[in-house]
């Protein structure tokens, strides 16, 4: 008997038809309850498991990093002193700015319109470096919107359905956005680096990029507001012979433990 007349093929074909239907309906957002069910059903088990694994992991990570933490603590103390000094200067500048604004009649820049979103699932199989969010077009989320956590850019929305959405994390290989170094003002392209971190590429070779300098969005992408903090320069990875400069960007946000984000509408 030919294979196409066998029960195996008929069943296989039927399942392929079902799959095609599901893919089509999902792409047109017509099976939102099913999508929500598949995302929500494993949540209780996941939450219960996380309540055990996260503290356990944190305990061992803390033990492992204890020596490094003492050194880091010293560095941070020094950094805090420096920042406090900068803060005083900034406060003075702020007051001066306010006075000038009032004098010139400038309108204060509008604040960001943020939509709070819980994270339904996060990079469950280590392939996409993406997160599923519990808010969608009904909450005003649109494709391309930036998502922030602890005030830092962590990704952008790539897919929206009425009540859920998917965002690509900034450390994903496919992630791209414009960015600039705050101090020097040099603009480049921020790219994810296969889940390992971020890199600021295509900087002019003469651009200065010192370790610790703050990196923020440049505002070229109309969906991503200007001056959203991204992280700080880690190290320059390109050589002086390269045409363009490249540097790693370190985010203070732990991408593995993002449970709540804000979508910048």
């Amino acid at each position: 008997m030919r294979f196409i007349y066998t029960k195996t093929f008929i069943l296989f074909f039927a399942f392929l038809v079902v799959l095609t239907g599901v893919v089509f309906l999902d792409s047109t957002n017509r099976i939102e309850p099913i999508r929500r069910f598949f995302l929500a059903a494993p949540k209780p088990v996941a939450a219960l498991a996380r309540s055990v694994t996260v503290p356990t992991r944190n305990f061992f990570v803390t033990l492992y990093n204890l020596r490094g933490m003492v050194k880091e603590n010293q560095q941070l103390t020094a950094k805090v002193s420096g920042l406090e000094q900068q803060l005083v200067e900034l406060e003075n500048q702020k007051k001066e700015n306010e006075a000038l604004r009032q004098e010139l009649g400038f309108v204060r820049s509008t604040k960001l319109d943020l939509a709070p979103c819980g994270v339904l699932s996060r990079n469950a199989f280590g392939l996409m470096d993406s997160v599923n969010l519990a808010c969608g077009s009904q909450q005003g989320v649109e494709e391309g919107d930036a998502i922030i956590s602890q005030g830092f850019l962590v990704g952008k929305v790539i897919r929206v359905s009425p009540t859920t959405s998917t965002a690509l994390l900034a450390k994903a290989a496919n992630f791209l956005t414009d960015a600039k170094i705050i101090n020097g003002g040099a603009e480049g392209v921020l790219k994810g680096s296969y889940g390992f971190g971020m890199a600021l590429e295509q900087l002019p070779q003469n651009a200065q990029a010192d370790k610790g300098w703050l990196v923020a969005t440049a505002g070229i992408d109309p969906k991503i507001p200007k001056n959203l903090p991204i992280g700080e320069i880690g190290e320059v990875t390109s050589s002086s012979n390269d045409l363009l400069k490249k540097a790693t960007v370190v985010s203070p946000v732990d991408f593995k433990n993002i449970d709540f984000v804000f979508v910048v509408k």
Partner: protein
Amino acid sequence: MKYLAYILWLAVLTGLNFGVFGNLAFFSTVPNLLLLFVIFTGSLKADLFERLFVALMAGLFADYWNGGFFGGFTLAFILLILLLQAVRSAFSLRDMDWKYFFAVFFLAYVFVGLTLWAYNFVALRSNWTEYYISFLGFLRKWPGEMLYNLVLLYPTKRYYDFVQKINRRYLEIGQP
């Protein structure tokens, strides 16, 4: 009822995958317990409809939780069941032996990875998505992920046996 039970067991497995192993990443890789469950189902179960049903449901959980272009895991899992059926027929195996099982695992693992990549690649080329899993990305994650999956092969087998035992005892389903 028996199919609802499978959905429940797969939801538990997805929750464990994310809740436990998502926080215990090994070289930035996370295991795929659903894939292991489908390999066991495809290798050990008798009823084809049941195997395909498990593959479909496991694939949907994986696709929704993965967040990439939808359908890749589901297609790969369904095709995997067909491939395992062919392997079973070719080698006249009713139940998989462990010594064969490692070969089957390797074959299934590479097959699912390639199918997933090819599906995403087609989606990208067809302009259905602009975000896909690159082959380089796959290659970087394969060794660590395969090792992690291998470590969890036996615990997943125990889970699979437990599911079958519960199903047989309380829901009168599973292997005859």
